[in-house]
């Protein structure tokens, strides 16, 4: 008898740190098992009113309790919960500056409310936050523990390394530093952060205390066993002061002023308003044909074309390499798309890999797919000419990450391609419309193709041949 998809049970490979419970999936559904060791805290969390308050304020992902029979390890299980689905999992190294800043502020807000309810956050990982569209939400239901009077905040160091240090370094240098968190998935160590920050940041109270002084204390007590330490009482007054000070310091961080190639892309387009409108209408028409539930807009800049599917209620992830474009997209909180459009920083020539323990903790971009539909508008010439990628390799990659593809071909006569060829010899004889179609047909079948009115550009709707659709 063939196995049903719902029979496939998998423990989440990134959910192993906290003995209070773990995440796993049955088929497409995600569950969280609360272990007996975490029962006291979980029950307090639910009965104290904190869960209801956080959900009502849309700060926490809601869940429902399901039958214990669905647990993965029944012997250790106290409860099983089914959290609401997050349409697309993203990681801190894919967020723009303000996304990381908002995630930090959300963590502090949650901690303040927890303290007011007699609980505390036992960690402060940036991976505890996800985005539903442009709304950050706390996802770790097991991060809450009973607050014991006088106890310090266990998550303080983690907060400084996951949030404060990257934001401070980005503020004083460039937001381009944030994707490098891929190599430091447990945040930027305090010692490294203090070496990277310019001396003038020592004059800022928040940074000098939470990073520099904090680092000195860590170094001084490197070999001191916590158990041997004289009992340290951190009063509620001090704890509130600490959270408030962190909040003020985070609020002072700001996206540095930078100029990028893409930040003003749509004010520098080389085709007429009529052609731009025609392109939008054609994209809309092709989306209607593909009927996707999930769209990835690859190289989507500030999200101009992502607005089309998102406006129709289709969840859309808009990827771009440019931190300023992604920042602008995130800050545009258009009400009609705010819950449906997720902007992320992604370099398509070096997409997010599998990371962490055994290459499984954090998933590559490809493993989070395939998307029902990818948009690749004004992108191919950048990959083929800007990055020397053969057209067949572009077609092959797209066929592994999406079921349908709306792709635009821009010929060499177009001024945008001319700019790319200005400073280098033309070694791309295959870069023609027929060469492009030949490459695409190896991995896709053509559903529709139309020339964009008022331009020399062609738009294609393709369907992947690999049988995933």
């Amino acid at each position: 008898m063939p196995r049903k998809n719902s029979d496939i049970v998998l423990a989440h490979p990134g959910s192993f740190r906290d003995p209070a419970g773990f995440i796993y999936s049955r088929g497409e559904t995600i569950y969280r098992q609360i272990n007996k060791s975490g029962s006291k805290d979980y029950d307090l969390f639910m009965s104290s009113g904190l869960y209801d308050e956080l959900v009502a304020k849309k700060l926490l992902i809601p869940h429902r309790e399901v039958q214990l029979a669905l647990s993965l390890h029944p012997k250790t299980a106290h409860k099983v919960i089914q959290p609401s689905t997050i349409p697309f999992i993203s990681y801190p190294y894919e967020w723009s500056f303000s996304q990381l800043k908002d995630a930090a502020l959300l963590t502090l807000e949650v901690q303040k409310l927890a303290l007011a309810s007699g609980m505390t956050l036992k960690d402060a990982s940036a991976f505890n936050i996800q985005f539903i569209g442009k709304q950050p939400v706390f996802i770790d239901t097991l991060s809450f523990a009973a607050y014991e009077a006088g106890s310090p905040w266990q998550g303080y160091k983690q907060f400084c390394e996951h949030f404060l240090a990257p934001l401070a370094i980005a503020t004083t240098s460039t937001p381009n530093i944030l994707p490098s968190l891929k190599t430091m998935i447990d945040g930027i160590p305090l010692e490294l952060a203090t070496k990277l920050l310019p001396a003038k940041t020592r004059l800022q109270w928040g940074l000098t205390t939470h990073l520099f002084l904090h680092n000195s204390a860590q170094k001084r007590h490197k070999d001191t066993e916590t158990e041997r330490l004289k009992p340290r009482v951190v009063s509620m007054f001090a704890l509130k002061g600490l959270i408030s000070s962190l909040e003020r310091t985070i609020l002072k961080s700001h996206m540095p002023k930078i100029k990028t190639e893409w930040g003003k892309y749509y004010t520098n387009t080389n085709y007429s308003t009529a052609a731009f409108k025609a392109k939008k209408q054609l994209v809309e028409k092709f989306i209607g044909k593909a009927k996707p539930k999930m769209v990835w807009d690859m190289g989507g800049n500030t999200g101009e074309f992502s607005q089309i599917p998102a406006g129709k209620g289709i969840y859309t992830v808009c990827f771009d390499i440019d931190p300023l474009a992604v920042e602008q997209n995130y800050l545009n909180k258009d009400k009609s798309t705010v819950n449906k459009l997720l902007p992320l920083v992604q370099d398509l020539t070096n997409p997010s890999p599998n990371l962490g323990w055994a290459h499984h903790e954090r998933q590559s971009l490809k493993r989070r797919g395939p998307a029902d539909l990818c948009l690749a508008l004004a992108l191919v010439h950048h990959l083929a000419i800007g990055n020397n990628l053969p057209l067949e390799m572009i077609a092959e990659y797209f066929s592994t990450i999406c079921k349908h593809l709306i792709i635009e071909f821009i010929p060499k006569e177009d001024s945008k391609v001319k700019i790319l060829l200005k400073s280098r010899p033309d070694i791309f004889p295959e870069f023609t419309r027929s060469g492009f179609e030949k490459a695409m047909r190896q991995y896709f079948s053509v559903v529709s193709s139309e020339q964009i009115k008022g331009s020399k550009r062609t738009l294609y709707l393709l369907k992947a041949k690999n049988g995933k659709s």
Partner: protein
Amino acid sequence: LSHYFAYLDPGTGSIVIQALIGVTAGVALFGRKTIGLLVTKFRSLFSKSDAKKK
């Protein structure tokens, strides 16, 4: 601290320093709030006297 509560290594130095930073920041917060209240009170006194003049 209960065993499961402290699954994360908080760092000994981190525990030592947060009491100090927290108290200092708490005093500063209290100070700011008090000054804010005094300023509001002061302003309201003046706005009342202005209203009387009119």
